[in-house]
């Protein structure tokens, strides 16, 4: 296989994405069971929201990890490209936080 560093990077990203999905799925499933069993129970809202936040956070973490990876590979063009994406996501999260 050619392009070895990128292939390893791809596999590490894969593990990151799996972790994010598994953690959020466990939180959401537990939260949903609580909700079905006793909708008002205290941990219900916390579990569901935590699951959603982990889910939404996973792609953002992927972008952050990608910045570090392109720095390590010294691909400066892609460092800048990835930082632009990260900035765009920061704008959205900022808008969301100010509208709460």
């Amino acid at each position, binding site marked *: *296989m*050619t*392009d070895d560093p*990128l*292939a390893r*990077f*791809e*596999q590490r*990203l*894969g*593990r990151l*994405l*799996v972790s*994010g*999905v598994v953690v*959020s*799925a466990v939180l*959401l*499933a537990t*939260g*949903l069971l609580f*909700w*079905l069993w006793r909708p008002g129970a205290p941990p219900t*809202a916390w579990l*569901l*929201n935590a*699951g*959603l936040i982990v*889910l*939404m956070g*996973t*792609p*953002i973490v*992927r*972008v952050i990890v*990608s910045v570090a990876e392109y720095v390590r590979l010294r691909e400066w063009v*892609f460092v800048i*490209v*990835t930082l*632009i*994406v990260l900035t*765009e*996501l920061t*704008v*959205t*999260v900022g*808008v*969301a*936080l100010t*509208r*709460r």
Partner: protein
Amino acid sequence: MVGVVTVCGAVAGALGALLGIGGGVFLVPFLNAFFGIDFKTAAAISLVTVIATSSAVSAGTTGRQLINLRLGMLLEVASAAGGVAAGVSIAHISDIALERAFAVATAGIALLMLSRLEQRNVIRDPAADPGPLGGRFHDEESGGEVVYQVRRLPIALAASFLAGNVSAAFGIGGGILKVPALNAWCGVPMRAAAATSSLMIGVTAVASVPIQYAHGYVKPPLAAAAVLGVLVGSRAGLWFAGRARAKWLKGLMAAVLVLVSLIYFRRSL
């Protein structure tokens, strides 16, 4: 209700994984047209499932070098910008105008897809130069390593920006616009386009979904049910996608586009 949403999620997830799109394009009509959940809530829930599909499908695709990380990140600049722009400005555009535009776009892409069923985009010479943005992968259909080059990058960027807009407006990943554009115009083979798009849609969705979440459109129990359904469905879709022929996938994609176009034409009347 929660059970119904889970099943809808599973079906949408399976179709989405099969086609390299989020599946939101099926989930929004299911939730909105059939079950009467208001459009903005349906779109927001769908967008959350798009993130789950993206992470799950991408994780299942890694290791085969189908995902073009460089091209994906470059196009994410445009799709995230489209998502942010639409997320902020969508209130000023009427739903009818958006839905008509979407109906026209999907119909156009379906025609394009059908007219290029035979196009494979791959160079069967492992020594060929993929260029700065192209890639190479092991092609199961021809049984060897194949190379492709990315052409007409501005079209890919424009399609990604539009996909970002549509994603925020309709609660879909936007792969339904990007995958055909990358395949038909930009030289990317179907499987690589689908894998790259699957990775991208997570970021595209995150470019607008936190705003909808802050507004309370993401109803947590329904979103949880839909996400869990989509995760199960996308496993099934992924298993099937590895065994299907590229030509068959394109045909199915075109059929889906025609159907979606008809639904949206009807909705906008």
